[in-house]
């Protein structure tokens, strides 16, 4: 029996790697994505432009303008001369943030009164705008604090902020562990779901069915290459994350290995299930797609799961990606071992069991 199984696996691997075109398609995109995405996928705000309308021109306003210009978050600062120009700059997205000093800004400060500072952000890009607004606010707060202290006032309390696991909030440290899961997903799903559909379309699936192999063995034979591809791709990305992108790896390597296998299994489960209900490659591909897009979008990679409405949080729980991403961030940044990873490991096992059984049942029904 093992001889047969081995032959089947060999055949599957040959199919995946024999053709130079399909070989390239399994490896090149991974490398390209590894090169581009860590730089592209960021919610940080960099290279933002600030437009300043200084109706005041006094010493205090000038001091703040100088501080804005020196801020690292705003490498470019536009000085505009009237409100129409400020409006146009924001409208045409030449600046993300606009700051308008009222005409009596310096006078009010000199008199010891509180001076308002109007900050306009481009709400079309609400997330970046909020973050940039935060930068402006902290520059203004520092300036305010200094004025209070210079006037002999005391600050009774202060917020002391510390970011654990990622002290400088490097977005890349968050992104690369997540990419290990995301990039792997595509390759292994496409391989499992489409390879059976392709056999069906070409009529070779019937040949497999009349061979001495049982449906379970056929499923197993389809799973192994997908596991190898997923594991290989994940390994490449994980190594690149550690050695090229210098993301710290604080957790346990065996835990990562075990979880990678669990994740690949659960993907294979979904892939087999999709292929069991599809008859053509086109349908299988659409099935993969219908599974994959929600799986990636609701995984907590783009936006945190806790921000979603309850129904979508339910879907996220079934989503193997959301659990694997938590585990990946855990083993990379939060020193996860098996104990901490377990709450996210058993859902993976559960989904694998359910999808694989469903697929098995569907295949059995088709054979009978």
């Amino acid at each position: 029996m093992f001889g047969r199984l081995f032959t089947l696996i060999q055949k599957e691997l040959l199919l995946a790697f024999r053709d130079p075109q399909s070989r390239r398609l399994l490896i090149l995109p991974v490398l390209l994505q590894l090169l581009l995405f860590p730089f592209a996928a960021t919610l940080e705000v960099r290279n933002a432009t600030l437009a300043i309308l200084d109706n005041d021109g006094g010493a205090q306003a000038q001091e703040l303008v100088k501080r804005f210009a020196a801020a690292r978050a705003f490498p470019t600062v536009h000085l505009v001369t009237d409100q129409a120009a400020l409006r146009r700059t924001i409208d045409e997205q030449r600046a993300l943030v606009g700051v308008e000093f009222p005409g009596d800004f310096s006078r009010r400060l000199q008199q010891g009164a509180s001076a308002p500072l109007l900050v306009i952000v481009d709400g079309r890009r609400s997330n970046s705008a909020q973050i940039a607004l935060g930068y402006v606010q902290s520059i203004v707060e520092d300036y305010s604090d200094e004025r209070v202290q210079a006037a002999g006032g005391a600050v009774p309390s202060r917020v002391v902020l510390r970011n654990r696991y990622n002290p400088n909030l490097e977005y890349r440290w968050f992104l690369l562990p997540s990419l290990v899961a995301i990039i792997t997903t595509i390759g292994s799903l496409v391989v499992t779901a489409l390879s059976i559909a392709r056999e069906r379309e070409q009529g070779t699936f019937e040949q497999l069915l009349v061979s001495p192999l049982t449906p379970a063995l056929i499923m197993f034979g389809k799973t192994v290459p997908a596991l190898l591809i997923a594991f290989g791709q994940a390994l490449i990305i994980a190594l690149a994350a550690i050695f090229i992108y210098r993301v710290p790896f604080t957790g346990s390597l065996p835990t990562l290995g075990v979880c990678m296998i669990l994740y690949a299994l659960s993907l294979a489960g979904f892939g087999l299930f999709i292929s069991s209900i599809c008859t053509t490659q086109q349908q299988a591909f659409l099935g993969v797609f219908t599974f994959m897009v929600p799986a990636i979008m609701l995984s907590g990679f783009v936006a945190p799961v806790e921000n979603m409405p309850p129904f979508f949080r339910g879907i996220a729980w079934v989503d193997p990606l959301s659990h694997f991403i938590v585990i990946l961030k855990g083993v990379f940044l939060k020193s996860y071992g098996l104990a901490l990873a377990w709450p996210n490991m058993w859902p993976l096992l559960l989904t694998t069991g359910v999808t694989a059984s469903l697929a098995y049942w569907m295949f059995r029904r088709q054979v009978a």
Partner: protein
Amino acid sequence: MSGHRPVSWRRLRALCLKESLQIVRDPSSALIAFVLPVVLLMIFGYGINLDASRLHIGVLSEDPGPEATRFVAALAASPVLETHPAAVRSALDHALAAGDIRGYVVLQSDFGARLARPGATAPVQVITDGSEPNTASFVAAYVQGVWSTWLAERAADRGEAFAPPVEVIARSWFNPAALSRNFIVPGSIALIMTIIGALLTSLVIAREWERGTMEALLSTAVTRSELLLSKVLPYYALGMISMLLCLAMAVWQFGVPFRGSFVLLLVYATLFLGSSLGLGLLLSTVLRNQFNAAQAALNAAFLPATMLSGFVFEISSMPAPVRAVTYLIPARYFIASLQTLFQAGFVGRILLDDFLFLTASAALFLGLSALKTRRRLD
């Protein structure tokens, strides 16, 4: 090539009919045109919420005094923060590692005493989960907000004048409540149209090559332009229908304002569909294998449209070489014009740039696939 004119309307009609029948008869096509857009838009609209609306944070107050109690109450009263009180620090550390909370606040036992002593500062320690950088900065910002309100109220209660010298008054133009949905939903229309344009066509045409029906078609009197048009037009119609469906959902379901011109939207959607249909055609003509065409379309059309288009991730924040790559991605221009048409209405400078780039990329991809098809005919 036979056929005297490049396009005979009768033949084109017949071909389009054949193509449309093929679409209508495959059950999965109805799924793509009507169900998938709705499902995806729901996912993008509800699932991608960048506005922290429910932040779980832990609170540890080692000081039972009234000042600390008031601060803890102020945190709990925040509509955004959901506080989880804890008795020991290790419990908070564990919850943070497990991801149950996104940060915690610690008030040390001498918090009240330090506040009372002139010249001393009472620290409010905030520890965030840096493994979620975006959420971590929201945690810091919201706690800071609660803290400054608390400080101002405390000063007012004590009869001290408390006003920060400079007070920031923030306005968010186009989107006063700064809802991330208002920019995510228009952008996702571009993604959905990419799926229909590039993915579906690449699969369908690769299938024709695989099954040999493309050769059969090519051996008839059909000209190259007719063949291309017959592949493009039905999928164009499918794409436009789903675009209109998305528009209706965006406006009525998600309440995203549409301030621009409907005619302009049709023009931009047409141009964008032109380029993604062109890309789909090109890939399938070059690869001629559904399996590979599907993967290539995913990598060449869908992923760039998600990651490099400004859909979620800001293009201006990317480093210069990656920014240069984004200029090659048609979705970038379509997303920019969608966001402008929805939220701003009309901004000539942005829309003109987008128009030129979209026209160029549509011409490029359609032209290339026409070239590749001819080579086969010779």
